[in-house]
């Protein structure tokens, strides 16, 4: 099936700006969490790039409100034994850590929910955030676990066999979301 673009560069930019506003408007779970920077943790590979971009938008809107890091979930996956060996990528946690903070997980596509399940386990080993939220650029449905996103760039109903790929300029040379 030929690749069908569903989001262009301007759409992605708009979606991230809207998510950033929604993140700022969302009520904090308690005054302590409200006083501390949000911790944006991107899930490799493209979630990290999206978290960086989201962090830049937040910095523009409310300087100092968010700190950005990366959370690799490879070692927590439930399908390791079924797949060829995966190479983990670095995990970077902002110096203040996650204890007591509001963490926002950032990923490109939400599908089965298994990556997010692994991410929740990984966060658990880093500390105890006050709350964990989930931001995704695309929600394509077909969840296999009771997980739902808090912030969504685009809801994209898809068939289970389709592939939804997010391309980002930093590594793919172009900003777009394609279905094939």
């Amino acid at each position, binding site marked *: 099936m030929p690749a069908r673009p569903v989001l262009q560069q301007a759409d992605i930019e708009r979606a991230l700006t809207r998510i950033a506003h929604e993140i700022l408007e969302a009520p904090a779970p308690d005054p302590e969490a409200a006083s501390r920077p949000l911790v944006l943790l991107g899930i490799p590979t493209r979630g990290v790039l999206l978290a960086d971009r989201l962090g830049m938008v937040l910095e523009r809107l409310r300087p100092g409100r968010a700190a950005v890091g990366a959370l*690799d979930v490879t*070692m*927590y996956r439930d399908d*390791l*034994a*079924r*797949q*060829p*060996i*995966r*190479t*983990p*990528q*670095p*995990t970077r946690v902002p110096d203040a850590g996650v*204890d007591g903070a509001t963490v926002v997980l950032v990923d490109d596509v939400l599908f089965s929910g298994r990556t997010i399940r692994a991410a929740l*386990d990984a966060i*658990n*080993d*880093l*500390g105890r955030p006050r709350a964990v939220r989930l931001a995704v650029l695309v929600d394509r449905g077909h969840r296999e676990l009771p997980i739902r996103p808090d912030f969504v760039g685009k809801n994209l109903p898809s068939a289970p066999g389709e592939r939804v790929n997010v391309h980002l300029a930093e590594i793919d040379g172009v900003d777009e979301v394609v279905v094939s």
Partner: protein
Amino acid sequence: MRHLLSVRDLSRDEAVGILDLAEDMAAVATRAVPKLPTLRGRTVANLFFEDSTRTRLSFEAAAKRLSADVITFTAKGSSVSKGESLKDTAQTVAAMGVDAVVLRHGASGAARVLADGGWIDAAVVNAGDGTHEHPTQALLDAYTMRRTRHGDASRGRDLEGLRVTIVGDVLHSRVARSNAWLLATLGAQVHLVGPGTLLPPGTAGWPVTTGTDLDAALAGDPWGELPDAVMMLRIQSERMHDAFFPDEREYAREWGLDAARFARLGADTMVMHPGPMNRGLEISSAAADSARSVVLDQVTNGVSIRMAVLYLVLGAGGRKEGAS
């Protein structure tokens, strides 16, 4: 990676990949919960036919940090003293259901025999075979050198241009062999120094230079520049059945890293030792306890390297049908 038997099976990229993975594993130790669930439900058997404390504990710690179960076999007080062979011991342990065997054995090539023998299905990790190889030691040494030299910018780098002098009982040292090959694969230059009787006859085919004069080597032989790392090997009295040097005092005088030699090293020369150290023989306390000594870093890094290796041999596939 199915097994880890010899560093000579590793390409430069594979070796750098293992070191990079160990960086991630090292980061785990600094977290609130220094443990990963990755190898939950897998069993690692440590088969140690030779005495070892640090290597066995290091593999044990590595397996446990990855949530694997560990069973340990040591030859002392075991069925080996009743005459059981490697094959029977391995099959017995395998019959208890193990996914990986970490093997330390006095016979060179034992790990290869176990891996190729078709006796067991488990992955085999060589933890030292006779005077042949000790791959995880060489990997942790390379990791330590890279980390000491490049710090947080280590990822993705090899050891291009690093000058390493390895001193002492090269003849009996699997550490020296594995290091010579791995360091060369990673682009470092290796110089072996020791008494002529303790330099192996076949070094012509190795990617190294050799010499017998430690003072010349520490003054820059053969590069004309001071070494970046000096690795002192342990005098292995348990493997010495002949007179290789007159006596210990003479050895210490000619080939020991005493205080005077240590004082002549470069300000950022690393002092390394695979342990256990014979203080006063191959290394002085002045050198071993100095700020330039990375001996304890080697121990710490050993756990990270072994986590990386266990992940690579066990992380993908291989889970028995119905065992999930």
